[in-house]
């Protein structure tokens, strides 16, 4: 149990997807003008990540790995399809995002119009594919994969809501005009990243 708690903390704070790996920056910067939309996107990312990473784990384990096809026929046990991982991972993610898009469009049209082009872009949110690739690279087992995906999703959520809150406050401060918006958001993210660097080395 302690192992999983430690993994969760590590995925949320120490190896935060935004501040440690800088994955998923595009939607992070573009949808962080208001806390409310940032909150919606954060929840959507958690949902998609928790859905797709374990799914990709199963695909990798039962279809792609060397020997994984042995359950169909013993003669297939030597087939190694790992080179197809990119295509299958991204197809799973795209399918899941399409599902989320349809649900959001039907039940919360306001959120749908607020997220705009960035809902489809969750698919190309590097953090989602990144989580699947990390899962493959670090050879997690199923429960570790589940915990890791929850942690990464929450990490993204925290980062985007924090930045949105800061940017809402910034509207009342005097920033040179050309630096407003994207420019200052980049610099703030850099400062937040430096702050999160101080989490490195923490262990439960």
């Amino acid at each position, binding site marked *: 149990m302690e192992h999983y708690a430690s993994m969760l903390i590590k995925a949320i704070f120490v190896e935060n997807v935004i501040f440690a790996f800088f994955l998923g920056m595009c939607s992070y910067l573009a949808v962080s003008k208001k806390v409310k939309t940032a909150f919606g996107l954060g929840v959507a990312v958690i949902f998609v990540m928790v859905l797709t990473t374990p799914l990709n784990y199963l695909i990798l384990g039962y279809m792609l790995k060397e020997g994984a096809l042995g359950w169909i026929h013993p003669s297939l046990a030597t087939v190694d399809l790992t*080179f197809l991982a*990119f295509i299958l991972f*991204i197809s799973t993610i795209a399918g899941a995002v399409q599902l989320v898009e349809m649900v959001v469009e039907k039940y919360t049209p306001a959120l749908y119009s607020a997220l705009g082009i960035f809902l489809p872009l969750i*698919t*190309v949110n*590097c953090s989602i594919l990144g989580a699947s690739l990390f899962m493959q690279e670090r050879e997690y087992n199923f429960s570790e994969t589940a915990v890791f995906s929850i942690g990464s999703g929450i990490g993204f959520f925290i980062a985007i809501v924090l930045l949105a809150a800061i940017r809402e406050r910034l509207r009342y401060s005097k920033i040179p005009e050309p630096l*407003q*918006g994207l*420019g200052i958001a980049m610099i703030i993210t850099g400062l937040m990243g430096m702050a999160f*660097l101080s989490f490195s080395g923490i262990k439960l």
Partner: protein
Amino acid sequence: MSVETTIAAPEVKKEGLFSKKNRKVLTDPLDDINPITVQILGVCSALAVTTQVKPAIIMALGVTVVTAFSSLIIALIRDAIPGRIRMIVQLVIVALLVTLVDQLLKAYMFDVSKKLSVFVGLIITNCIVMGRLEAFAMAQKPWPAFLDGIGNGLGYGLILVIVGAVREFFGSGSLLGFKLIPQWMYDMGYVNNGLMMLPPAALFIIGLFIWWQRSRNPKLVNVS
């Protein structure tokens, strides 16, 4: 490139291959609608690969090739794609192209591919590719879409090389691997800036670059 020209030529015969409009499609992404600093697309990899100039250049080439050809293919088949599943179709094509680039690099330039393997895979999730497919290629003819892909790839590459050059020069005192800061400067107490090798530095540099670009070109202000 000649193959694509022949495919695209019949459709744009009336206005010429490099008409003013098409030239604008090609050059606008370099400055006015630069994918990174104005459209906010493709920032993730811009942070990951810019500690040195060389990986930045190779990454930019890879992204340009993938963006251009995926835009071309999507623009060719755009009428046959059902709206609901367009993302999956787009991503499979992009993933296919990236896998091709990856396998080609592995076959012919194994050393480079060993160095770049992670970066090459990351092109799939590079928002520029998807963003341009959604915003441009789905509604345009193949030839402008192809030019748009090349333009956006180059605009991305421009920022990457600038950030890579600044980080490599101040972070390790060299450019493209050549030592630029002489030994006597180190002997006098000059120290490389370690922060430049950490990811936050890329954010600061891009942020300051945006500041400079927008103060030079006021019509970009508040586009955010």
